[in-house]
Every structure is written in structure tokens, then in C-alpha cells.
């Protein structure tokens, strides 16, 4: 049974870490992940602890590293993830690392700032050229179509908008032109109109290519606008409005030559900027590539360092301030490992006085550690989800490994479905080292973690499917049915005999839609089918009645065995915790109650199966009535199940007495317990009334619980029935329809029908039904099984281990 039966023994150890070597020791401990630290400074707030400065430094390093990773990702440089995780950096290296990183950050910030500036410059120039290009068309259009200018004295067309001409007219015409964000155009125009009271003319056109904002990287659509206005006052206002709407305003050239000149100048400057920008980007890339090589190990190292300081913050200083005292929980089996790790740490730091440890006795409850492997992990998780086991109590996970898949399979009993599930799980198990499966998300991850559970569930479903003789709702005739139809039709009897025995003749066969096989006729029933249900039931109309009775009884039997087992496990707990009186006063009465009522029910079921045969079946009494009568009228003289039944009443009376005594006995138990506690603690007040109440409630709860829990196990029957019916419906509605069609079209039709059948089988029967059976199996374990013995009030052992730190970049970026 090993370590899975109970959690491991723990001991509280005190570590005396010399202040010079504490860091190295913890680094060694973290690599091994042996111990759980206790927080000795709980009432000190986080910023008043000893090593807060170091933690701050780690955070600063993390900030720089996050910045580096962000920049590297932005430049699309692949980040190499190392296979091995580097150890926490020695203290001497930390400063060096910090300096190096800080230098890198400063350099990087400078280069990126330069780059941004260059890009912004470039963008401005590009915008300017766009503006020049677009506004040229505005002016031309104005010249040709704008009626506003008709009232001016006729001038030559090409110089109409010439600035100097306008000046000659006495009105000072001004232009403001630039670019504006697409979304703001409308509001901008309105505001212009209102402020300037219509003394402006605004023309704008959409820029065909969107430009990228260098700061946010957003691609924005722009409009080019040109505002012409008279008078300086309005000009000021227009400029202010432009500022308000964050327009990019560029000087507007007055003459065509000027425009050309500017454009040429811009083009050369853009060319220059491009080359400079390329150079800068190349340099930046070089820097980043160099940084990318070491960034992974740096990230891991800083994380480890931070974890170490967090742990050191939990230690307290001794009086002389020379060494740190840490209190840790450590499994007893690992104590020598712990010693070795401390030695290693001391040796590494070259300290003269070694760090050492000693165990200290404690009354506190240690954390629970149950070592698992990849097979048992899933089952342990099912148990832990209900509650982590109390220290050293019997761990139900061990038994869950078999009972869980079995109970699941009872509800999921189908040979075919089970086999598909088994194959799926097998696929996962065989490929479990595949990296894509390891990193899969959400639902797939859930399946992957439960692959061994799935595997066993599939296997057991195959088994129960064989017993139920169900394969996609059809039975398989492997060994030949034990029933023979021809015997019903035998002609060796006289007609009178035939009538008496209900044998068939031609007229009966012809006129009756339903015929009944009678097992009492010799030769009709030749003995049971070797494995599971006889396939002939698949044809019978009373198949459901037969299966219901079988499955119902089976689930009650399984349930009671399961619960009785739970009560017996309770005895192991009492033995281990040295509470002998609990065995006599709790477990034995509980067992008696369970066995005398429900054990007797099982006995009756089995007895009836064995004793009554086809011939005597008509006189067989109903178990249900017998069972009820047993409680109500012990003297009722119906013909009982068996001859000595009245004798049982005596036994039953005993059991009833047991029931009535149970309450008081439990009270005694309560007394004993508290007296024990009284001796130990000397402080807990003895309150008889309260204890009486809780014990009475407990007794009643157990008695009622037994009944309701037994009823609860009927879900095994209900779910298995539902599953069988659902798969039957799927078969009749799809495949049978497909098979009935004519041979010529049938082939064509059968293909989509089978495909649909497969899809529905997987989604409804395998996934949906599987999930519901899974949930019910979990419930049966958590409630019906575990409440018989499992307290589950422990805390999990969480070792200080670097392996628990995530070694991904993802959460740095986030």
C-alpha cells in the first residue's frame, strides 16, 4: 500500500542559516524542492521585512527584462528557450548582471528613442508631400468651378489664386493646410463654421493611403484639408481650432515654383532619412539579437532570486543577528537530503561555520504530502478536489483507482463506446511526451491530465459492456444463445399437453404478434450464457423489464459493498489514531446497522436468485414487500422467502436494538473523546449538552444517510439505462433507416448516415453521456463513499521549489 495509503510523516525542522550562506542554502533547497517554509513574520507588513530591498532590486530587474522581452518581440526576433534552467545567480554576479542589464536598457531606450524620432520626422515629411500633392488639385478645381471668384475683376486664370494678386485686391487671403484624423473631420468643419461665421472656405479630400502612427503603431486614415480665409483675426482662430483638433499643419506654398521646390527638397530629405533609419534599425536589431541570447536565462535567474528573497523574508533573525532561523516542514524520509542540501549550500559559499538543522517537536498539524506519479496523480486530484486529506488519515485515492472507473463503467456499459474511449486514452498515453499535448489549452488539457483515468474508464466500460452484452446498443452472439425457439414448437407432445404447456402451433404463430418463450418447457432454456446477458434478450419485447430488475439489484449490491468498505476503512483510521473506543462505539454499531438492514437485503436478493427457478417462479415472493413487512409486521403470516424466515426476526430485533442503542452509545463515545481531550489540553470546557446534541444528530444522520445513500446508488441503474436507451434510439433512428433503403440507393445513403451516426455517437454518447456518468461517479465517491470515513481537513504540502515557478515568457509580457 506504500505511501498512497496514508500521507507521509512530517516533522518540523529548524534551520539555522549563517547569514552569509543563507542565500546559497536556499538556492540549493529550491533546486531540490524538499521543504515548506513557515512564515515567522506574519504580522510584519510586506514592506517592513528584512530583505525588501533585495526584492525591490529583483523587481527592478524584472521590469528591465520585461522591457527587453517586449522590444525583442516587437522586432520579431525569436527568443531561444533554454532546455536546462540555470541556477540562481551567485550574489557576486548579481551586481554585474544588474549593471549589464541597466546599461543595455539605457542603450536600448536611446536607440529606440532615436528611431522613433526619425520615424516621426519621416512621417511628417511624407505627410507634407501628400498634402502638397493633394492640395494642388484643390486649387485647380477652385480655379475652374468655384463661383465665389466670379465677382473679382477678370484676371488670367492661372494666377487667380496667386497670393500677391489677392493682396492687390485689399483683402489678405491666407491659407492653412494640413492633415486631420478621419473621425474628426465633421466636427472640425462645424466648429470652423461656427467660430468664423462662414468667412472661411474648407476643402478636403481623403488621403488614399493610411499612415501608421509611430507611437501606437495604429494605422490611421487621414484627410487633407485646405482652409482659405481673409483677415488675420480669423487666421488666429483657425490656427487655434487646428491645434484643438490635433491637426498636423504644414506651411502652404504660395506659388507653383515654390511648391515644386519644396517638393524636391522633401524628396531628397526623405531619401536621406530612409537611409539613416535603416542604419538605426540594423543597429537596434544587432543589440536586440545579442540581448535575446541571454534573456531567457536572466529571466529564470531573476525569478529564482526573487523567490529566494521571499523565503528569506519569512525567516527570523536570532538574537545575535548572525544567523537566520527558518522553520520548515519536511517529510521525515527526506531529512538526510535536507542535510545534504544545507551542506552543499554552505560549501558553495565557502563559509567557515556550516548551516545546520534540528528537528523540533510540535503539536501543530503538519501539512499533508502524498507522493504521486503520473498514473496516480489524476485520481489523487479527484480526491483533493473534495478536500485535502487530514494528516495521516486513510487516503481514498488508492481505492478510487479501481472503484472510480468501475462505477463509471457500470453507468457507461457499452463495449463499443468503451473501446473508442480506451483507444482515445491510449493515444494520449502513448504520445504523452509530445510537446503539443503538453502545452495544449483548456479542454484538451483536461483530457490530457486525466488520460490514465480515461484509459481505465475505457477498459472497465469494455468489461461491463461485455457483461451487459451491449455494443453500440446491439448484442453480440459469441457463444450461441442458451435459448432455443424450436423446442417451443416441438411436435413430440400431444395436443393436450401442448395446450397445457403453452407450446406453439401454426395457428398461434400465425395469429399472435408477440410470442413467449417458456423456460419451464424442457429444451427451451439450456443453461445460462457463459458471459453476461444472453443475446436473445436483444430481440425480446420485455427486455427492459428484465434488464431493469437486474441492474437495479446490481446497483444496490454494489452500493452497499462500497459503503460497507468505507465504514471498514474508518476502522483503520481509528486504529491509527489510537481511538480504540471509537471502533467499539462507532464503527461496530455502524457496521451492524448497515449489514443487518441492507446486508440482509442483499442476502435476500442473492437467496432469491439461487433458490427460485423457472418452475417455482410463480410462487416467489416480492423482496420489496418482504423488506417492508420486516419493519412493519413481524408476525404477518404470508408465505415467506424461505422456511426459517421467522427465525430471522429474532436477529432483526437484535439489529433494531442496535439501532436504538446507537444513539446513546455514540454519546458515550463523545464523552470519552472529550475526557481524553480534557486531560491533554486542560482548557477545553466540557459541555455535555452540546456534545449530546452533536452526537444525536450524527447518529440520526448516519441512519438516514444509509437509506438515502443506498437509494442514491440507484443512479448507477438509471444512468446505465439512459445510456443504453439513448444509443438504442440513435441506432433505430439512423442506421436502421439507412439499412432499410433499397440496395441501389442504400449504398449512397449509408455513407452519410454512418458519418452522422459516428459524429452523434462521439458527441452525445461519448462526450455528453461520458461527462454525466463521470460526474455521477465523482458524486458517489465524494458523498456516498468518503463521508463514511474521510475527513479531508488537511492542508497541502507546498514545497519551496523552483520547479513550480513558471519558465515561460508569457507572463512576463502580460
Amino acid at each position, binding site marked *: 500500500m506504500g505511501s498512497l495509503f496514508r500521507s507521509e510523516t512530517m516533522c518540523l525542522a529548524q534551520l539555522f542559516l549563517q547569514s552569509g550562506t543563507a542565500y546559497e542554502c536556499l538556492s540549493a533547497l529550491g533546486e531540490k524542492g524538499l521543504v515548506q517554509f513557515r512564515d515567522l513574520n506574519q504580522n510584519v*507588513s510586506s514592506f517592513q521585512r528584512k530583505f525588501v530591498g533585495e526584492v525591490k532590486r529583483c523587481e527592478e530587474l524584472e521590469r528591465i527584462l520585461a522591457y527587453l522581452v517586449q522590444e525583442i518581440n516587437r522586432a520579431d526576433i525569436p527568443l531561444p528557450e533554454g532546455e536546462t534552467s540555470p541556477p540562481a545567480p551567485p550574489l557576486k554576479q548579481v551586481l554585474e548582471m544588474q549593471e549589464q542589464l541597466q546599461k543595455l536598457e539605457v542603450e536600448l531606450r536611446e536607440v529606440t528613442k532615436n528611431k522613433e524620432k526619425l520615424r516621426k520626422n519621416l512621417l511628417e515629411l511624407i505627410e507634407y508631400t501628400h498634402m502638397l500633392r493633394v492640395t494642388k488639385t484643390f486649387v485647380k478645381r477652385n480655379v475652374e468651378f468655384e463661383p465665389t471668384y466670379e465677382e473679382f475683376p477678370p484676371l488670367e486664370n492661372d494666377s487667380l489664386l496667386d497670393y500677391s494678386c489677392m493682396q492687390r485686391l485689399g483683402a489678405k487671403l491666407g491659407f492653412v493646410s494640413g492633415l486631420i484624423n478621419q473621425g474628426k473631420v465633421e466636427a472640425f468643419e462645424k466648429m470652423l463654421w461656427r*467660430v468664423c461665421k462662414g468667412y472661411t472656405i474648407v476643402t478636403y479630400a481623403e488621403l488614399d493611403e493610411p499612415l501608421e502612427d509611430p507611437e501606437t503603431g495604429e494605422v490611421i486614415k487621414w484627410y487633407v484639408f485646405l482652409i482659405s480665409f481673409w483677415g488675420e483675426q480669423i487666421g488666429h*482662430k483657425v490656427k487655434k481650432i487646428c491645434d*484643438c483638433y490635433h491637426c498636423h499643419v504644414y506651411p502652404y506654398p504660395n506659388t507653383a515654383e515654390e511648391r515644386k521646390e519644396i517638393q524636391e527638397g522633401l524628396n531628397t530629405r526623405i531619401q536621406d532619412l530612409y537611409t539613416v533609419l535603416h542604419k538605426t534599425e540594423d543597429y537596434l536589431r544587432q543589440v536586440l539579437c545579442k540581448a535575446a541570447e541571454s534573456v531567457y536565462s536572466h529571466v529564470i535567474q531573476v525569478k529564482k532570486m526573487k523567490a529566494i528573497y521571499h523565503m528569506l523574508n519569512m525567516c527570523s533573525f536570532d538574537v545575535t543577528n548572525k544567523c537566520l532561523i527558518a522553520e520548515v516542514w519536511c517529510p521525515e524520509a527526506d531529512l538526510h537530503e535536507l542535510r545534504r542540501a544545507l551542506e552543499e549550500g554552505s560549501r558553495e559559499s565557502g563559509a567557515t561555520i556550516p548551516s545546520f538543522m534540528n528537528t523540533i517537536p510540535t503539536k501543530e498539524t503538519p501539512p499533508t504530502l502524498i507522493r504521486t506519479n503520473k498514473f496516480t496523480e489524476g485520481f489523487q486530484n479527484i480526491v483533493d478536489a473534495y478536500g485535502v486529506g487530514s494528516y495521516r488519515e486513510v487516503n481514498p485515492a488508492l481505492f478510487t483507482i479501481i472503484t472510480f472507473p468501475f462505477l463509471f463503467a457500470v453507468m457507461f456499459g457499452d463495449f463499443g463506446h468503451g473501446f473508442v474511449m480506451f483507444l482515445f486514452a491510449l493515444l494520449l498515453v502513448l504520445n504523452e511526451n509530445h510537446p503539443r499535448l503538453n502545452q495544449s489549452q483548456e479542454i484538451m488539457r483536461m483530457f490530457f491530465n486525466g488520460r490514465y483515468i480515461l484509459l481505465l474508464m475505457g477498459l472497465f466500460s469494455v468489461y461491463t459492456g461485455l457483461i451487459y452484452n451491449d455494443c453500440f446498443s446491439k448484442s453480440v452472439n459469441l457463444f450461441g444463445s442458451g435459448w432455443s425457439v424450436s423446442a417451443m414448437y416441438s411436435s413430440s407432445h400431444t395436443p393436450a399437453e401442448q395446450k397445457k404447456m403453452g407450446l406453439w402451433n401454426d395457428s398461434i404463430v400465425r395469429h399472435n404478434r408477440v410470442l413467449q418463450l417458456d423456460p419451464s418447457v424442457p429444451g427451451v432454456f439450456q443453461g445460462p450464457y457463459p458471459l453476461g446477458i444472453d443475446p436473445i434478450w436483444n430481440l425480446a419485447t420485455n427486455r427492459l423489464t428484465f434488464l431493469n430488475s437486474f441492474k437495479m439489484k446490481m446497483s444496490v449490491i454494489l452500493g452497499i459493498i462500497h459503503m460497507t468498505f468505507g465504514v471498514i476503512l474508518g476502522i483503520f483510521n481509528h486504529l491509527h489514531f489510537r481511538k480504540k473506543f471509537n471502533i467499539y462505539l462507532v464503527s461496530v454499531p455502524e457496521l451492524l446497522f448497515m449489514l443487518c438492514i441492507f446486508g440482509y437485503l442483499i442476502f435476500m436478493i442473492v437467496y432469491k436468485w439461487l433458490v427460485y427457478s423457472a418452475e417455482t417462479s410463480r410462487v416467489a415472493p416480492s423482496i420489496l414487500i418482504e423488506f417492508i413487512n420486516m419493519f412493519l409486521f413481524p408476525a404477518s403470516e404470508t408465505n415467506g422467502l424461505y422456511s426459517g424466515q421467522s427465525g430471522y426476526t429474532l436477529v432483526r430485533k437484535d439489529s433494531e436494538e442496535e439501532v436504538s442503542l446507537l444513539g446513546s452509545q455514540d454519546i458515550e463515545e463523545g464523552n470519552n473523546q472529550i475526557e481524553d481531550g480534557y486531560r491533554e489540553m486542560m482548557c477545553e470546557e466540557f459541555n455535555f449538552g452540546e456534545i449530546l446534541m452533536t452526537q444525536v444528530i450524527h447518529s440520526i444522520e448516519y441512519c438516514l444517510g444509509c437509506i438515502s445513500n443506498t437509494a442514491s446508488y440507484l443512479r448507477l441503474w438509471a444512468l446505465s439505462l439512459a445510456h443504453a436507451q439513448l444509443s438504442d434510439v440513435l441506432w433505430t433512428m439512423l442506421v436502421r433507416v439507412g439499412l432499410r433503403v433499397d440496395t441501389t440507393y442504400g449504398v449512397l445513403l449509408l455513407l452519410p448516415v454512418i458519418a452522422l451516426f459516428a459524429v452523434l455517437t462521439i458527441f452525445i454518447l461519448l462526450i455528453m453521456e461520458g461527462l454525466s456518468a463521470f460526474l455521477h461517479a465523482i458524486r458517489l465517491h465524494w458523498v456516498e463513499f468518503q463521508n463514511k470515513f474521510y475527513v479531508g481537513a488537511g492542508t497541502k504540502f507546498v514545497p519551496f521549489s523552483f520547479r513550480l515557478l513558471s519558465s515561460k515568457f508569457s507572463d512576463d509580457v502580460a
Partner: protein
Amino acid sequence: MLEGAEFYFNVDHGYLEGLVRGCKASLLTQQDYINLVQCETLEDVKIHLQTTDYGNFLANQTNPLTVSKIDTEMRKKLCREFEYFRNHSLEPLSTFFTYMTCSYMIDNVILLMNGALQKKSVKEILVKCHPLGRFTEMEAVNIAETPSDLFNAVLVETPLAPFFQDCMSENTLDELNIELLRNKLYKSYLEAFYKFCKNHGDVTAEIMCPILEFEADRRAFIITLNSFGTELSKDDRETLYPTCGKLYPEGLHLLAQAEDFDQMRRVADHYGVYKPLFEAVGDGSGGKTLEDVFYEREVQMNVLAFNRQFHYGVFYAYTKLKEQEMRNIVWIAECISQRHRTKINSYIPIL
């Protein structure tokens, strides 16, 4: 709204109400304040705030940390939350949100106009503007020379436009006029908001009306207090009082006649709600200021707003509580950075 709108409330606003209640749970607790007060440096404040719901909102700030950096980041956080609420809201909750932002918008407009008066650049003042009251036309405020200009050119399309009806005048904008404008705007804003909540009915009216009544009366008191010893005439003063409070109408008349703090206190004595507040005000040297007392009362009302369900008041209350919390943090941070620890405990505790 129909009678018993509680039935339908969750269809439209249930998600947001749940969200805002969750946000309210993240307000700093008494224990947090006790820890914050013990901090030695701003770095300690940052470390402590990291353990609360603020998370590492200061992580990207380069050293050295200053109070204003903390303040801006906190405001940004509140603004993000508020924007989220607002973007996911449906009518009439979105109108309610618009009303909520109006008060910040008024403050921003006044701030910008004052800045323009003192010939400061717009950018410099924009930093100081509250992000909740930001709107695009805001920066053009300094174009205007007179209130009517301001209305016609800049604010006509903003939610502030309806509040301008009472204050259209051709006066030039000097410092006094701006202050008058602010109070008039605020008066009509409060009245409009009050009317909106009243018309909305249901629990929203039951919760919001007392809060807004209190807000109106508080303004009346504060205006009175600030006008002592200024050239503001008593009639002018009365026109500035919001008329939706409990003081309306008799109390406001009396307040308009008050000439010093004692007379004001006598007016408040007529009202059961305000009497204890004025009694709590310390005299001169020690004790609380009138402002602090009002703040405490406001916090109390806002916290109580969370006791009822199916109303919009929670959004208002949450924003106000968060603001108060930010004021507290800034106060504590200021005390720490200026090494002026004697008054560090006079933040307003949020219950």
C-alpha cells in the same frame, strides 16, 4: 419607466451593476490605510499598493516616484474603469453617465479659461484636467472672449450646452466672472441632474435625490463661506445657489443674508441633517474643517447607496468613493514625501 422596473433592470444593466459592486469591493480597507500610514517612503507606498487591487499599476514608472505620477496613474485607472462602464451601458444609464461626466467637464472648462486668462499654454493646463471630463472641443475654449461666444462656438454640441441658458451674457471673462460662470453652470447642472433622477423614479430617485440634495446644499454653504469678504453682492450670491437642495427656499434666503460663519451655523441649526455636521467642525486650531465634515458625510451616503439594488446610484457612488480614496492616497503620499507626518491621519476613512 414602468412600475417595478426592478424586474427588467438586470436585462440591461445587471452586468454593469455586478461589475461595479465587484469594483467597490476592491476599495482600500481600514487595514490598508493603517499600513499605508506607516510607510516611510513613496516606494513603500508603491509596494503596499501592489498588494491591493491597484496591482502593479506603477510598474512601468521609472524612478524617482512622485506624488503626481501616482495621482495620474490612479486617475487613469479610474478613467479606464469608467470608460468601460460607459461603453457597455444602455439608455438611460448612458445618459446618467453623461451627467456624471458633466461636473468634470465644467471644472475642466473653467480651468482652461483661467489658464487662458493667465496666458498659460493649453498643453500645460491639459495635463491638469481631469481625464473623466475630457472632450475634444475642450482645447478650443480659449478662443472665446465672452460666455455667449463660448457657448456658440465651442460648447454648443457638448452635453454642457443646456446648462448655459442662464449664463449667457456679453461680459468679458475676467477672474470673477469665470468663477460666477462656474457656479451658475454648476447650479443648472445640478438642477438638471436632479430632475433627471427624479423623473427616472424608482430606487434610482430614492438613492440619487438625497445625494444630489446634499451636494446642492453643500455648494450653497461653500459658496456662502467663500463669498465672505468679497465684493459679491447678496443678491448675486443668491442666484448662485442650486435650488434642488433641502435648504430651498427658506434656507437659501437666510444663507444669502448671512454675514459670517456664526450666522451660517445658525441657518444650519434649523436643519436636522446639517446641525450635527456643523457641530462636528472644530474651532480654529484643531479639529476638522467644514470641508472634511462634508466629505465624511458624502462618503457615508455613498456607502449606503450600495445597500439597495437595481439603481444607478451605485455608479455615482463608486466613482465618488474612488475619488475620495484617491484623495486619501494623495494626501498620505504628500505627507510622506514632504515629511510632514503630524497630519497624515486626517484622511477621510471609507467605511
